[in-house]
């Protein structure tokens, strides 16, 4: 039977035991909760305007969050050349599937067999 140490202790020296981690996590939450009871602000009230965020400007835009197509816009913009290249390969063309299959079979055949002779 495998023990925990045998699996999860490699040369990096990490001992990872999930139950322990969960226990630490719960403990942290308890500590935070107890700590918060005494040191956080107590003048928060439900059912008042305090709860709502302060909005200025057009309300419709706020009710509708940023569309997912616009998320990570900067990431896409920064890597634009990579994405134009990689998306040109994913056109959904059946001939392309076959092209890539035959190409990879040919290349792997050459690599594995080391040439025809």
């Amino acid at each position: 039977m495998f023990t925990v140490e045998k699996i999860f202790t490699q040369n990096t020296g990490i001992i990872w035991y999930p139950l322990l981690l969960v226990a630490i996590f719960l403990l942290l939450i308890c500590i935070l909760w107890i700590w918060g009871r005494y040191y956080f602000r107590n003048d928060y009230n439900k059912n008042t305007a305090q709860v709502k965020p302060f909005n200025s400007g057009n309300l419709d835009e706020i009710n509708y969050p940023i569309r997912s197509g616009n998320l990570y816009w900067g990431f896409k913009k920064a890597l634009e050349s990579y994405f134009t290249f990689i998306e040109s390969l994913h056109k959904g063309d059946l001939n392309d599937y076959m092209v890539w299959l035959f190409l990879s079979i040919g290349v792997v055949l050459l690599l594995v067999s080391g040439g025809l002779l």
Partner: protein
Amino acid sequence: MTDFFLYVTVVLLIFFGMVALIYKRNLIKIVIALNIIEAGINLLFIALAYRPNGTAPIFTLAPALGELKMVLPTPQALILTNIVIGFGTTALMLTLAILTYQNNHTLDIRKLRGVENND
């Protein structure tokens, strides 16, 4: 000589079918190409089983035991299976091609391309 031509036929059938898979854009043409590849593979198996001057692996009308030489039965049995499987594949692919045509009014791969992205 025979073996040379038989194997050339096998390899060329498979080759032609695969070239058609790269260059042909009609959904039904692709099914024909698949059928030709399958015919090549079937012929390969039967050619592997063949022995010259042999008889079919059936004892009912075979010559006497002394000079009895038979072709191998297993590849033939497998090819029987493979023919029916190939027919099933063909039928299903044609059905799907018909439905694709009815929903999109084209059988051309280029016109169907990118059709998933704009739902």
